[in-house]
């Protein structure tokens, strides 16, 4: 099973001929694309308000704003676009994190990246009186970058480098540390608490096109950087020494890939709040049909991530009518069991 192979384990899955592998990858990618399409349709069609199919079509292409059903569909468009972007960013970001750290458990939320963003946002609300999403974006972004570097630096101290256990513990500990600073602020300022508690839960419900336009450049740059070092990450998967022997500049690949991961994850957190487990689960799923090659893994992760996040969002909208459950909660509740399954499948010695 490729699922149990270390991320980017050498070469193709054993016993698969190149032609068969190519076919499997193509079919897999096509299925992912189909899944995205279905998720988009579902995301436009289903929601807190039940609408007919004719309203869905009309709402997307020629909205009649006086019709409430069509207006509801219209409002789902921005949400769907944001879901696609954030899901793809989390998928690619997770795959890059896992590839660079050679760590099957790397995920932006578990590694404390989101908590850095949270602290930055809280401080921004309190000290600078910020209140709109476009203002949070930058802060969340800076916070995410700082805390991800901090967590990785702490975990990679010591002889064996950043092992999965050390990374997970460093992430959890940093989250706890930053969390207590956040609650110190929140307890003394009820007004800040009232603004923050809604941001703290990852959600697509606040999407709007101006904000999407604002985060889009970051996502594009991050994706390009990530794709640019795909081959380098394939080499790193063989071990740093081998990668150097193959003529890769390991330091450069790590730096560029790390920048890509922070850009992607930080922007996703900034745009939608902390959403856990998507970045963790998606690359593992994608690897089952792409094998370890990052040139296939990254696009597949993007497509799968987008599809999964949208699907989770639709689930959250439908299960608790007339209210909705934020997507960050749905992914955590569905994703944690997958994480546990991954841990249970591996021998602890490998961790």
């Amino acid at each position: 099973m490729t699922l149990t192979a270390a991320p980017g384990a050498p070469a193709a899955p054993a016993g698969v001929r190149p032609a068969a592998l190519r076919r499997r990858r193509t079919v897999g990618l096509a299925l992912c694309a189909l899944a995205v399409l279905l998720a988009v349709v579902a995301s436009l069609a289903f929601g807190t308000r039940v609408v007919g199919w004719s309203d869905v079509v009309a709402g997307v292409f020629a909205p009649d704003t006086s019709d409430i059903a069509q207006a509801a569909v219209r409002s789902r468009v921005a949400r769907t676009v944001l879901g696609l972007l954030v899901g793809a960013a989390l998928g690619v970001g997770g795959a890059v994190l896992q590839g660079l750290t050679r760590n099957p458990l790397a995920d932006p939320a578990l590694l404390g990246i989101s908590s850095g963003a949270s602290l930055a946002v809280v401080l921004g609300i309190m000290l600078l009186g910020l209140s709109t999403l476009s203002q949070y974006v930058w802060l969340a972004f800076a916070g995410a970058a700082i805390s991800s570097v901090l967590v990785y630096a702490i975990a990679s101290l010591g002889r064996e480098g950043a092992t999965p256990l050390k990374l997970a513990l460093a992430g959890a500990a940093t989250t706890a540390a930053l969390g207590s600073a956040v609650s110190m602020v929140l307890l003394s300022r009820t007004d800040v608490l009232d603004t923050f508690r809604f941001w703290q839960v990852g959600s697509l419900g606040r999407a709007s096109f101006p904000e999407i336009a604002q985060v889009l450049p970051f996502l594009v740059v991050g994706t390009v950087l990530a794709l640019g070092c795909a081959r380098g990450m394939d080499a790193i998967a063989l071990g740093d020494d081998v990668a150097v022997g193959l003529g890769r500049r390991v330091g450069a690949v790590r730096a560029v890939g790390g920048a890509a991961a922070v850009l992607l994850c930080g922007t996703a957190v900034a745009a939608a709040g902390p959403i856990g487990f998507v970045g963790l689960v998606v690359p593992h799923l994608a690897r089952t049909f792409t094998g370890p090659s990052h040139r296939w893994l990254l696009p597949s992760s993007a497509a799968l991530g987008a599809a999964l996040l949208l699907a989770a969002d639709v689930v959250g909208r439908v299960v608790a009518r007339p209210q909705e459950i934020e997507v960050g909660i749905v992914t955590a509740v569905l994703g944690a069991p997958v994480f546990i399954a991954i841990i249970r499948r591996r021998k602890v010695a490998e961790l």
Partner: protein
Amino acid sequence: MTAVLPPATTVPTGATVARGRRARLRRRRVVLLVLAVAVVAVAGVALCVGERSYPPSEVLRVLLGEQVPGASFNVGVLRTPRVLTGVLVGIAFGMGGVVFQTMLRNPLASPDIIGVSAGSSAAAVVAITMFGLSGTTLSAVAVVAGLVVAAAIYALSWRSGVQGARLVLIGIAVGAMLDSVIAYALTRAGVYDASEALRWLTGSLNSAFWPGVAPLAGALAVLVPTLLVLARRLPALQLGDDAAAGLGVRPDRSRLALLLVAVAVIAVATAATGPIAFVAFLSGPIAHRLVRGTGPLLVPAALVGALLVLVADLVGQHLLVHRFPVGVVTGVLGAPYLLWLLARTNRSGGSL
């Protein structure tokens, strides 16, 4: 420094070994005595100082049961249960934490980090915000939920035996899941309930009054001695499963018993005050530095825990611009220490 000497050429004689042992024992006794005195002293200060301060003599008279106008209410009704609760939960968190850390052989594997406390917190927050529970029912729910979550973590990490690393990772995953439940409950609550729940999440002594002290003390009077007895197996477990089995300690059974009692201790304390941040995590390593590996850490860690809670509560009540609950103070004090410890253990690979 012995480390820079060339490999020892002389074998220490029996007399040297005995002298060393006596010196270590003396050091341990001194440290324990100093800690105990410090706890009593800080408790005394906490009783005397407040919005209205009283001289020690009046406080003593109140404690001896005399009626002193003013002081009887302020000290006897308000401050004494607060201090007692602080001491008790400090002991509980310190002991429970150090058992986890020693057993899992990782100072970071304390209950507040690997999701054990999160069970109680999540249950309490849901109970407050969605069902409007309070008082004894709330405490009971928190205790039961803490035990259930810990059992679930243990069961999930079971795969022909439980390994420490797997337990830690699964605990982190379960903790992350529970955190999102908490976040969800917070968004569904009115802002007053939300801040009430948040206070509960950080840990606070503000709701410590006489009716709550007796159940807490009763539960701990049973659990703490049990934990002390069970903890005799810890040194063997620390050597690894195979060595422990060779020494006549059944690793899985002992670990389960220890975990169960330690979780119960933590859950009872959490139900009384909320999970006071980082006390369970900090007490063990601090106690270790103080007694320098001269014996079991449970009692020193318990004293350190009590001291931490009392001092942090004093600071939070009187020394800051706002009145902060004790958990915020320990959290903010603990965070830098946590990061430092993280960096240090990773570099040296030490166990505590």
